[in-house]
């Protein structure tokens, strides 16, 4: 084990390297590019034996990734936002091939307006494609979960591709101390892939992605993929324990922070959850019974664990770093379906949307969220979903607009 300062992208590259990936189909996009550049340098320096190919698009990249996985080699690839959506058709397709591969998505808000900064609309747009989704909050988690992701994807009970998500900028470009295990340690946790029946070779014909002509066969294969994905919860827990034995810290589908005795619980995914933790600490110092629950797995969704962790709570605040226009926060809807009708469902399930396009969520806002939920618990009335935005922010945006208008009228343009 070797401790080093690594960015989230660096941690992802180390994870892929230690997983001894065979094949890297690639395409550049900010903020992901550093991952493929790092791997490419290692390949050129002969530190990593892997074939890298830059495709002409992410759609082709995912096609090549899936097609190579069908031959039984270990495949890694990475993208972000526009690239993920450009490849969307192939994410669904490759998931249907039931082959293991790991795709890192470095979250970035979607156009338009165009931005390089993160939120979760890109990865959640791919929520239903059939890839398992692991969401990381720290650089260490990125590295570790890449190793776990291969075990998960290649597990005979799962055999589905896995997407590992990390937030652009906040994780991708932020240096944190990361424990890098030795290759020998990793080899013990992640042996070479035993492809079994996953192979294209002369004398053993195989058909992948065939047509089905009616709903019954289609449903059969879709249900199979769903059931395999659900298996992923128990398998992730098993792997998390096995990981702990070898490396000293464990992983679970749900991270529960001070939530056991909490009356009010925040629910979030991704790196902003570390900000939430800090707010929890500060509020705990003043005697507030607050906690945090963070799903690491978004697909499969750890429904039972969430029900258990939230049973009997007075109020839950779901903080969504995404926005489904016309509905609101996506996770909030997910949580409502998890909790509704369960005997000890919290009476208040409040929705907050924030952190879009890299916008920060400040401690004060976490305190305010706590206050709003506390009030709701007292009155028994769940508030309307709230879009986080401060008056100060609005003022400075208005100022920007008026400056632009002034410049334009000075240049003689219309208003």
């Amino acid at each position, binding site marked *: 084990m070797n401790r080093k300062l690594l960015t989230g992208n660096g941690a992802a590259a180390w994870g892929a390297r230690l997983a001894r990936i065979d094949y890297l189909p690639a395409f550049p996009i900010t903020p992901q590019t550093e991952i493929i550049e790092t791997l490419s340098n290692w390949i050129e320096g002969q530190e990593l034996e892997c074939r890298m190919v830059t*495709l*002409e698009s992410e759609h082709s990249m995912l*096609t090549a990734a899936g097609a190579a*996985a*069908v*031959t039984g080699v270990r495949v890694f690839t990475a993208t972000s936002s526009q690239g993920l959506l450009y490849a969307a058709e192939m994410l669904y*397709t490759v998931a249907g091939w039931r082959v293991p591969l790991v795709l890192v998505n470095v979250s970035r808000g979607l156009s338009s307006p165009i931005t390089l900064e993160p939120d979760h609309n890109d990865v959640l747009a791919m929520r239903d494609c059939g890839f398992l989704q692991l969401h990381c909050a720290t650089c260490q988690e990125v590295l570790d979960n890449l190793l776990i992701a291969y075990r998960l994807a290649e597990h005979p009970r799962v055999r589905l591709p896995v997407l590992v998500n990390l937030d652009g900028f906040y994780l991708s470009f932020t240096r944190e101390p990361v424990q890098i295990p030795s290759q020998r340690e990793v080899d013990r946790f992640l042996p070479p892939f035993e492809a079994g029946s996953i192979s294209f*070779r002369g*004398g053993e014909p195989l058909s992948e992605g065939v047509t089905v002509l009616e709903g019954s066969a289609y449903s059969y294969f879709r249900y199979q993929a769903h059931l395999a994905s659900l298996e992923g919860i128990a398998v992730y827990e098993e792997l998390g324990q096995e990981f702990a034995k070898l490396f000293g810290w464990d992983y679970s589908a749900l991270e529960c922070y001070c939530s056991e005795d909490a009356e009010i619980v925040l629910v979030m995914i991704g790196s902003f959850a570390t900000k939430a933790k800090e707010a929890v600490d500060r509020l705990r110092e003043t005697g507030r019974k607050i906690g945090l629950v963070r799903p690491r797995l978004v697909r499969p969704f750890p429904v039972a664990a969430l029900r258990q962790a939230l049973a009997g709570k007075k109020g839950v605040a779901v903080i969504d770093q995404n926005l489904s226009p016309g509905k609101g926060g996506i996770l909030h809807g997910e949580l409502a379906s998890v909790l509704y009708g369960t005997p000890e469902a919290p009476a208040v399930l409040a929705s907050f949307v924030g952190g879009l396009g890299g916008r920060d969520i400040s401690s004060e806002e976490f305190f305010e969220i706590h206050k709003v939920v506390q009030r709701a618990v007292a009155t028994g009335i769940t508030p309307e979903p709230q879009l986080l935005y401060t008056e100060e922010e609005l003022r400075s945006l208005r100022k920007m607009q008026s400056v632009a208008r002034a410049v334009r009228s000075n240049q003689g343009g219309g208003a």
Partner: protein
Amino acid sequence: MSDTPYQHLRDLPAHHILGTGTPMCAGCGGLATLHQVYDILGEKCVIINAAGCMTLLSVYPCTPFHGSWLYTAMASAPAGAQGVRDGLDILKKKGRLSREEDLEVVVLTGDGSANGMGLSATSGAMDRNLDFLYLCYDNEGYGNTGQQYSAATPHAARTATSKGSLGYPGYKKDLFAIWAAHNPGYVATVVAAEPLDLARKIERARGLSGPRLILALAPCPTGWDFEPSASVEIGKLAVATGIWPLKEYVDGRVTHTKIPHPRLEVRDYLKAQGRFAHLFAPRENRKMIAEIQARVDRYWQKVD
């Protein structure tokens, strides 16, 4: 092409390995091409397919192929070929795949995919000098969706989206030239109605490496509106009228493998198909027919 084992029709494979009973239409020129190609390639290949009529060949739980099959999507079959080729090469290098187990990677798509949505992936595969064979069956339209015009539809043809009295206003895209401009391993045009020429070209393509295209005119009774029994005749007419030049590109040179002499008039070809019926009735559109003839003449002037 005297270096191939196919000198006479009797040299063609007598044993046919592609299964029958597929849902393709009777008289399908695309399927006829695939039969001939597959007989020569044998089962040691993996077919990477894009959305089109041939996607319906492999319908769960049956397949007419003795070899492997991977359906990708409409736009990215060549990228699928990239992944499979790379995967097999990695396995070979690691000693996990023997030479005997290696497969020829064959892309199979229609003209719509080849000329349009899939062209970027195709061009990319050529940039990377991918070792693969691309079989494009050109039925000159989006056949599977009901024969709307594609970039390969010939001028004046009636399609589901060009039903006016002038037919399709555009001109057929020159996919052969687009490929040749990439300086690939091999490019050839074929038609199932000329099986010996086709067999020689497949055999030749097999012996070469890099990106290789077999572009097959695929008479389509359903989309072109003619009797299935006329499929071979129409293929022969396409060659005899000079509308479909049989040629190949190797090492920067284009050679015509069959020069029709004397060339029949294009009207013989046009008149045989319902998709050009509006050129003959209610009144003959002499101007349009002459224009089509002139374009063909101009092409052959450059060849002669």
